[in-house]
């Protein structure tokens, strides 16, 4: 098979998987009614792609998933917040990937989550012009560390299992 086509197919499948995880997660009621807090299971795919694919390929998966995710959730108003978070997270993790090996992906993922929450918060502050929102930042940090560690561990396990099977 043409290697380009193979690559494109892999990326498409990854995007589809991320989207499915995203839609399934939408159905799980969030126990914390705080804006910006969620598990973010679809980020398992983002973390996986960052470690397994080229930077622009990981970025492409994330961008397509974000836009289609907003379509499926019917929540375009929230897209700007998640997009700013994702942008900061993606840039940060692509840099961290150079320093953090595949055995410590969860660390890189936690930093990614913290960056994601920071980007979200910055966008919310700029758009709503309401500094009081900062009161939520500590919440976001705590939940981001936990969610980031979890999604990072998942990605780490996926990568090590896939290697074993090769």
């Amino acid at each position, binding site marked *: 098979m043409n290697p380009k086509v193979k690559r494109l197919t892999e990326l498409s499948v990854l995007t589809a998987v991320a989207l499915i995880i995203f839609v399934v997660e939408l159905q799980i009621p969030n126990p914390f*009614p705080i804006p910006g807090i969620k598990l973010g299971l679809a980020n398992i795919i983002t973390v996986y792609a960052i470690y397994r694919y080229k930077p622009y390929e990981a970025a492409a998966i994330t961008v397509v998933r974000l836009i289609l995710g907003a379509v499926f959730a019917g929540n375009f108003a929230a897209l700007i917040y998640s997009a700013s978070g994702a942008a900061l997270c993606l840039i940060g993790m692509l840099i961290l990937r150079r320093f953090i090996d595949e055995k410590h992906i969860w660390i890189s993922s936690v930093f990614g989550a*913290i960056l994601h929450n920071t980007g979200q918060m910055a966008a919310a502050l700029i758009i*709503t012009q309401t500094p009081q929102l900062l009161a939520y930042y*500590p919440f976001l940090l705590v939940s981001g*560390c936990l969610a980031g560690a979890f999604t990072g561990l998942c990605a780490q396990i996926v990568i090590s299992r896939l290697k074993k099977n090769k």
Partner: protein
Amino acid sequence: MKYKVMIIIIAVIFAAGAVGTFFALNSPARGTVRVISGGKVIETIDLISSDDRSFDVEYDGHKNTVEIRDHRVRVISADCPDQTCVRMGWLSSSSMPIVCLPHQLVIEYTESLDGIDAVTR
């Protein structure tokens, strides 16, 4: 070695977040609330003297319904998919406003009581 440093950094951020969360949850308040839509204060309500009522806040074609009952305030309905502001319930903490990010709505106390005051009340 470098991973140890990174884990310590994460631990510090996590601890700072936990401490901040604790303080944010423990700042009771009473009195006057502000309703802010799109960055502008559209209504200031003295909860102590206000009667029970509800009103709609519209922004950019979206609508939230705010209810005032028993000198408390909450959002009872919103036409957004995530319903976070509705599920946040009554406004209870001076440092944790009710927010609806998609509709740029914020409901917050204008002033806070410090911890000692709140206890002696």
